[in-house]
């Protein structure tokens, strides 16, 4: 597993750097807890007035919150930092150094930065998810767990490919640094089941900015709401998008001429 060793190397660098700024850990913990508290507070208010939100029970929505934090953590831990770095390095020409490495450049670029403290969101998200599942009291069988893992992987690949496609736009239009911010504000909508939203918004959150695949669909797998068509569709989409993003990367790279080098 060559890529895994590359990832471990970048992870080690990130840990070395961050242990010099240990206070960041406290600050990140504080912010993560604040964020979680805010989300739970909002849920608590809403569920004092109803006990079923668009067909979802409170603890099912809580499980969704867990996955929302978990996937958000994954995005900010490894996906987004590397893509931000890519956009920046295309602009100032430092991408040269990445291309000169003796490994697949897309892998190096994707793994080049790890925001280690985001792991807190992943841990918190997992904690909330497990708590919600225990409270739901449903026995999660092997099929549901497997479907969940499968959908979480497909969702992550879809999000990664989406980020990569957006970031490679920097090869054509140099100033795209704000483009990733779109995702952050749209991702907030993933805190709620997408089935609540009216058709146009649900469509947008599924196919334009694929938030639904990252949050709602994995939870649907856990709560046995998922039909096999969605399952197959998500897997197919993750494969197609991954290939398309690879094409975007290859085509974009041909245009790269090293801005200041």
């Amino acid at each position, binding site marked *: 597993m060559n890529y895994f060793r590359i990832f471990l190397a970048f992870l080690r660098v990130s840990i070395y750097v961050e242990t010099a700024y240990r206070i960041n850990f406290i600050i990140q913990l504080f912010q993560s807890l*604040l964020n979680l508290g805010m989300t739970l507070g909002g849920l608590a*208010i809403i569920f004092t007035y109803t006990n079923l*939100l*668009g067909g979802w029970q409170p603890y099912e929505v809580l499980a969704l919150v867990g996955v929302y934090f978990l996937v958000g953590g994954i995005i900010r831990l490894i996906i987004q930092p590397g893509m931000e770095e890519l956009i920046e390095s295309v602009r100032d020409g430092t991408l040269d150094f990445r291309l000169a490495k003796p490994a697949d450049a897309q892998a190096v670029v994707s793994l080049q930065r790890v925001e280690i403290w985001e792991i807190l969101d992943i841990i918190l998200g997992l904690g909330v998810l497990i708590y919600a599942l225990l409270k739901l009291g449903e026995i999660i069988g092997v099929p549901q767990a497997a479907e969940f893992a499968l959908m979480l992987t497909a969702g992550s690949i879809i999000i990664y490919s989406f980020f990569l496609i957006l970031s490679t736009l920097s090869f054509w239009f140099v100033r795209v640094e704000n483009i990733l911010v779109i995702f952050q*504000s749209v991702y*907030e909508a993933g805190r*709620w089941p997408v089935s*609540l939203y009216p058709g146009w918004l649900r469509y947008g959150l599924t196919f334009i900015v694929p938030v639904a695949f990252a949050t709602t669909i994995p939870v649907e797998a856990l709560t046995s709401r998922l039909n096999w068509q969605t399952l197959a569709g998500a897997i197919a989409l993750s494969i197609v998008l991954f290939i398309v993003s690879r094409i975007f990367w290859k085509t974009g790279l041909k245009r790269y001429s090293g801005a200041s080098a």
Partner: protein
Amino acid sequence: MKPLVQLYIQQFKTTLAMMFQYRASLVIWTIGQVLEPLVYLIVWSVVANSSGGSVGSYTTADFAAYFIVLMLVNQVTYTWIMYEFEYRVREGILSAALLKPVHPIHSDIADNISSKIITLPIMIAIAIIFAFAFHTSVAPAPWAILAFIPVLLLAFLIRFILEWTLAQAAFWTTRVSAINQSYFVAFLFLSGQIAPLTLLPHAVQILSLLLPFRWLINFPVELLLGRLTMVETLIGIGAQFGWLIVSIVLLRTVWRAGVKAYTAVGA
């Protein structure tokens, strides 16, 4: 007064030129401003529909009106100074502003108003589309519409001065993100952005009366929705004036101490 007017006009031209340069950021920013109230609008509508058409004194249409008006009030009073100030202090850019013969807050206010002039028509158009899409409308009394204008203006001023003051935490620490986020969370709950304040637990409602946030968002919104009596409106305006004075005093005190603490890192 004349130099100040000139400053505002010049800042308007500069901001306008910059905004046309960064059209994409404008679109991205608009999506964020619209999506959050829209999500809560939808969530509360679903709740209202599933509990017989209303929650408390809010029907499905009332929720829609509440969050659409909230979107506009938030847009008018919104500031981004807390993100920017830390950068200015860290990079030493503030030094240049300190040399100018006017208080730096003026160019920030002018910049804020200028970009609002451009974005407000977009937001109003979106609000009208939403009003049709969610079958809702507002019909406030003429006096309420009249009162809404100064109330909104006061809300803008207080929010601007408060957030400008808070942004100066950057003079003492470069790690302002935790402070900013605490402020935003408090703001979200206590200003009525998550739910109309009357739906929150009693203790939170009491707390919201003692803090500035509700007077910046929830109060103007409820006024335009025609949910307030004249007496309640006058009390609210009184509270706004109180907070205006408090925020100006805070601004002056903190600014004086902050400039002393400023070491122009990076310059």
